[in-house]
């Protein structure tokens, strides 16, 4: 009877051993997970997304994931989820969307860059032999691309802009079929699906020749100014290009080389019949008098376009 009581320490050592083993296993797995997770806010968003059991069952087993950590770390981690859950992911709403990077968006929306135009229309019109009205500017070159590619990956846009997905897309309200159909919705989106046209208007509005005191639109009056924007704008300069979606230095460089680079965003590729009411950015040497057309305009760009740290 007493012989069993003498062996109590064996049980205690076994218990301590189990606790130490469990702690070691837990700490090791936490370290691995931390190494695999992207160091961004979206990582938190992805981690909070629940994986449905059916889809989770098809995911790679944990042992395999631990066996090849280097391979997984090299590719962005994608949280497997269903369409409905993804639709309501916090990344599609403010404030998370303001911190979303292009990589975050492209995890699910890669097709916007991968899908290209048809090589020829159904009637056989080849894309290499087509040109839109605004593509007649010298700055439009290369093959036809989709508008997403033109805004994100085309050679010219890379020279003059640093656009990202969230420059245009500010989320939408998935509760409704069409954005913002609930009048109390907090977003500023229009009944159009994905982008506020006022964002497009910044670069696709008309050339405001009246404000500049020119006798007519640039295609008529440009010759009188040697088709050179910098003839006047070498001195009359605003700081308007210093926003987070434009490459101000690149624009300067391109503008000197070819005025079509300026005209492209200031009327040459106009979609709409109005001009964007740009803020009244003062420049060094600007007079104190504000012209009538600029009265009551803000003096800074929209808050979300300001370069971080550039303003108080």
């Amino acid at each position, binding site marked *: 009877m007493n012989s069993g009581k003498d062996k109590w320490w064996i049980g205690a050592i076994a218990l301590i051993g189990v606790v130490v083993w469990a702690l070691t296993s837990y700490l090791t797995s936490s370290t691995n997970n931390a190494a695999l997770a992207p160091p961004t806010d979206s990582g938190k968003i992805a981690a909070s997304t629940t994986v449905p059991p059916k889809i989770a069952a098809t995911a790679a087993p944990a042992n395999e994931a631990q066996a090849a950590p280097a391979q997984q770390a090299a590719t962005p981690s994608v949280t497997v989820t269903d369409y409905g859950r993804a639709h309501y992911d916090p990344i599609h709403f403010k404030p998370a969307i303001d911190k979303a990077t292009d990589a975050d968006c492209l995890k699910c929306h890669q097709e916007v860059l991968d899908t290209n135009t048809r090589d020829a229309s159904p009637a056989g019109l080849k894309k290499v032999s087509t040109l839109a009205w605004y593509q007649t500017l010298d700055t439009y070159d290369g093959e036809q691309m*989709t508008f997403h590619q033109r805004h994100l990956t085309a050679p010219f846009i890379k020279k003059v802009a640093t656009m990202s997905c969230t420059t245009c897309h500010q989320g939408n309200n998935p509760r409704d079929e069409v954005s913002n*159909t609930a*009048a109390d919705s907090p977003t500023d989106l229009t*009944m159009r699906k994905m982008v506020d046209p006022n964002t497009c208007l910044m670069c696709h509005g008309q050339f405001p020749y009246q404000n500049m005191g020119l006798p007519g639109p640039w295609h008529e009056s440009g010759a009188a100014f040697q088709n050179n924007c910098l003839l006047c704008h070498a001195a009359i300069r605003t700081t308007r290009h210093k926003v987070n979606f434009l490459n101000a230095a690149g624009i300067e460089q391109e503008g000197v080389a070819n005025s079509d680079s300026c005209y492209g965003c200031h009327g040459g590729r106009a979609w709409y019949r109005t001009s964007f009411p740009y803020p009244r950015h003062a420049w060094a040497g600007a007079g104190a008098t504000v012209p009538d057309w600029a009265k009551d305009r803000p003096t800074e760009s929209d808050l979300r376009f300001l370069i971080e740290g550039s303003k108080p």
Partner: protein
Amino acid sequence: MANEPVPKNPVLQDKATIKEAIVRHKKEVYTPVVPAQQFGFIHNNVDCIGCRACEIACKDKNGLAPGPRFRRVMYVEGGTYPAVYAYKVNMSCNHCAEPACLPTCPTGAIYKRKKDGIVDIDSSLCIGCRRCEAACPYGAPQFIPEQNIVSKCNMCVDEIDAGRKPYCVMACMMRVLDIGPIDKLREATYPTKAMAPHEKDKLVRQVKSMADPELTNPSIVFIAHSNGRVDEPKEPK
């Protein structure tokens, strides 16, 4: 045929002429079409019950698969009990006076008819760049993923040419959707069942959450709900 030598055109041998022609073509500027008459839509936001018969008739007419919708009935709801409200906004292509889609099209597939201002896409010329989809402030052009092309409402041009009204209008059981010359619709002088005589003061070009009509001058007017009004009706510039 394709491998046979092409006879030399003396004009095309003159490099200076070719260069000058290229420059001329490259600097060509888009001039909006001014139609003899502009057709447009009228929709009564208040009396519309949101049955979506117009949507279905449109999809039926155009053979559309699930997904693309040329016509969209949008439900707007809001308020706090007991002061709650609901109304519908119904839009398709607005056949704008100066459509944003048209100058963006690299193939000339989009055109505006001179006789009635209807904006149409010749889908056989579309290469699916989707610029028109991006440019339209009202979400009218619809991408057809199976064919990688874009298509949209053409106000049922075949019906118009046959002297009838579009399918959506004919399907509307409440008679809240109609078409007519947009100038007369704006003046409230066009006889239509979509607007009762006492509703003339509710006629507007824009409703809440709709893109600014100054962008393209869309050919549409609404009988607005009191909660859907943006401001006083204004004439296009």
